[in-house]
């Protein structure tokens, strides 16, 4: 078997199950070639060296820092919402004053409900123009 194939087979054996026949081929090739066996053991050394032995950490109080960051972000978002509305508050006030002015100009009587447009349209039935729809239709 070619060296490249042996190498592939060796690497495959490190990460997944290989068949009995493949295992036999591999051990046969390694036993026959000492240099090849030494080369392959280089992979084992490399893998052993890179494997994490000490648990990783982001340092003390990491969880507290994350929670604080999230809470600060919430405050920041609240501030942004406030700022967004603050930009338009002058325009909104102007519109409100304009609407009140229109109400005052066009209202019949100057009292608070009419200025605010809160008067009920309570026209009595007698004040309504009567219209005999049936007779009008048959004329």
């Amino acid at each position, binding site marked *: 078997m070619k060296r490249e194939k042996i*190498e*592939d087979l060796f*690497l*495959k054996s490190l*990460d*997944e199950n290989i068949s009995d026949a493949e295992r036999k081929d591999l051990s046969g090739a390694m036993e026959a070639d000492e240099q090849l066996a030494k*080369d392959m053991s*280089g*992979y084992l*050394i*490399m*893998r052993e*060296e*890179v*494997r*994490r032995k000490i*648990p*990783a*950490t*982001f*340092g003390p109080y*990491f*969880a*507290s*820092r*994350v*929670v604080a*960051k*999230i*809470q600060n*972000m919430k405050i920041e978002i609240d501030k942004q919402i406030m700022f967004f509305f603050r930009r338009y508050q002058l325009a909104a006030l102007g519109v409100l004053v304009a609407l009140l002015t229109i109400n005052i100009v066009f209202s019949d009587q100057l009292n608070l409900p009419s200025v605010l447009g809160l008067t009920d349209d309570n026209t009595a039935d007698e004040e309504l123009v009567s219209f005999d729809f049936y007779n009008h239709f048959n004329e």
Partner: protein
Amino acid sequence: MEVSDEVLVQRSREGNAQAFKELVNRHEGKVAGVVQSMLGDTQETQDVGQEVFVRFYQALDQFKGQSAVSTYLIRIAINLSLNELKRRKKRNMLFAKEEEGINTSSPDNKNDLKEVIVYELNRLEPDFQSVVTLRLIEGYSTVETAEILGIPLGTVLSRLSRAQKKLKSVLAKHMEL
């Protein structure tokens, strides 16, 4: 009895900061391992680490529990680390010089096998680096690695094989492998 991740996620959704803190404590090690392996021990590592959990918090409502919390977090960690690597590359191209830090600077002691390996690992292409990080450094199985990265198992195996060959050929110059 230890409260399950699912319960902690539900409590966090309801605004329980203590529950979320417990989730962070529980998964910090795994996330730190991945981010540090990808980026080295730099200031950005801390920032990316925090960002992983902030993103997770923001996505709590979308988290349906189809995969384990740790899988979800590691996926975010890998993606954010890859983004950071891209940013580094752009910065390096912009300034046309190598940045400080363990990842891009040459190892001080070329006889220190660990240091040389970390240096060479960080020179791998990002797709290869993420596979090597998960499988070889952090010890996830090839199936778990495929699930986390969302790629077929065959792709994981082939990237792993190519990355190891590349690493070994480079390392052979530094030591008797």
